[in-house]
């Protein structure tokens, strides 16, 4: 029996406590929220209330596009909503059911979190490989120059760096690198920070310095560089790589062949981005040249090392 509460969008559900809560609740959940919504787990709080975590099964076409094996994967997205079942007199539970929009939002938030995790893992896994791609190198050059100059010419005047560095964002970069521990800006002078002085980075040869230091910066400052400093190249290539690896991880198979259209669909669903087929194909070719993917005609498949790095951290299977 369900009764509407006019003051809120939530609905109060009254269920007999004699039946198993999951069994009694599941039909209501599927009817109100979606056929894939399920009771993920139930635990009893110290108050005696039952706390019910909900998940949602997302059916995903993960077919091998080359071998056409027609494979559907049930992808379980956990923790999209939490309900509380309160014991009531007469051997009942009273449960406040949120409206569907609340559950939809919970699902979308969790999906975004998973994509974000995949993004970060992807960026860190393939950084070394995409470092040599022109657009990445161009966008990161100002950061690298600041770090290289600081390493070789300390102490440096802030004014001099700002003058000689052709970027408009030099002061922002200095501030971010200071906060991340790569350098210290004191009284108008720049000196190496604890991270730049660490043995790992200090002993790197001049030739390897760029790749090594930027790899380190990407690992420790990905969000700051991407979101605060607008270095979107950090996520640009990882996003297109994730367009492939998202399916590979869901299918637990780094060798699954996807075509451009399948990658396009992943990008649309996960990032809400609609790219042209030629554009996506070109990005996949660049990633193939950087050994992030293997490309054969219009098909791509994964690289084991990259797959291993991203698959261990992404919370679905």
């Amino acid at each position, binding site marked *: 029996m369900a009764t509407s509460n006019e003051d809120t969008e939530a609905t109060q559900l009254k269920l007999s406590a004699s039946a198993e809560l999951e069994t009694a609740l599941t039909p209501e959940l599927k009817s109100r929220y979606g*056929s*894939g919504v399920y009771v993920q787990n139930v635990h009893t709080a110290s108050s005696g209330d039952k706390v019910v975590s909900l998940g949602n*099964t*997302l*059916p995903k076409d*993960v077919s091998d596009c080359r071998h056409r094996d027609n*494979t*559907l994967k*049930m992808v*379980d997205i956990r923790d999209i909503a939490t309900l509380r079942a309160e014991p009531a007199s007469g051997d009942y539970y009273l449960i406040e059911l949120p409206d569907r929009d609340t559950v939809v939002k919970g699902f979308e938030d969790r999906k975004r979190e998973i994509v974000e995790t995949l993004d970060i893992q992807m960026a860190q896994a393939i950084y070394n490989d995409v470092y040599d791609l022109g657009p990445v190198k161009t966008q990161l050059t100002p950061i690298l120059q600041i770090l290289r100059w600081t390493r070789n010419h300390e102490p440096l005047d802030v004014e001099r760096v700002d003058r000689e560095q052709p970027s408009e964002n030099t002061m922002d970069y200095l501030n971010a690198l200071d906060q991340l521990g790569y350098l210290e800006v004191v009284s108008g002078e720049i000196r190496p920070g604890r991270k730049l002085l660490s043995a790992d980075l200090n002993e790197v040869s001049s030739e390897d310095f760029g790749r090594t230091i930027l790899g380190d910066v990407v690992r420790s400052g990905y969000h700051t560089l991407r979101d605060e400093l607008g270095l979107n190249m950090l996520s640009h290539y990882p996003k297109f790589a994730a367009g492939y690896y998202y399916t590979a991880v869901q299918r637990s198979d780094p060798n699954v062949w996807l075509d451009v259209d399948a990658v396009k669909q992943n990008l649309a669903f996960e990032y809400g981005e609609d790219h042209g087929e030629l554009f996506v194909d070109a990005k996949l070719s660049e990633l193939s040249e950087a050994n992030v993917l293997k490309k054969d005609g219009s098909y791509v498949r994964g690289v084991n090392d990259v797959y291993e790095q991203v698959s261990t951290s992404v919370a679905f299977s």
Partner: protein
Amino acid sequence: MVADFQRQPTPDNCLPTALKNILDRHAEAAEKPGLSFPLDELNGLCEYRDGLGSATHELPERLDAEIANLGYETKVSIGTTFEQLDTIIQSDATSLPLTELAADYFETVEGYDVQPGRDGWNLNHIVIPFGVNDETVLFYDPMEGFFRPNSSDSTPSSERPKAQFYEWWSDPRKRWTFWIEESEQQQLDTFGTEDNGNE
């Protein structure tokens, strides 16, 4: 029987697609073109969201508002029997029914391979029964059509032993069954159908 049925365009669109198929078919058979709706409109009536699928809770009320002026109404039956299912299928006054099957139905599908999630089998599925025989049930699975987008052949019908079908049908919502019928028709009341929205 199911040669003209549409495949579902996305893996979680079984309800709107199945609903479109039964409405289109009945619209043609009963010469009531107003019963045919674009899939986008049915997605709205089913509250379809990409990734979260559809909700049936408010569907009867929403669909009734669209078809009442055509002399039709929705019916939802809980605890449906095979005899009742067969009557709905055979009647000219009703659409074909939709039934909901438990997720472990997917373990037996033939046109595609399904891998369970890390929490097991949790996605219910809507199919369209169109034949109840002595030993088996014939039905159309819109998901099977999903994997045949470029085939010139129609999607083959599915057939399962009655006992097996009964188990899948009974688990999620006690043999939930949905159809539309002419408002004047009363003969199905003997089946214990419920009023809309009271499933």
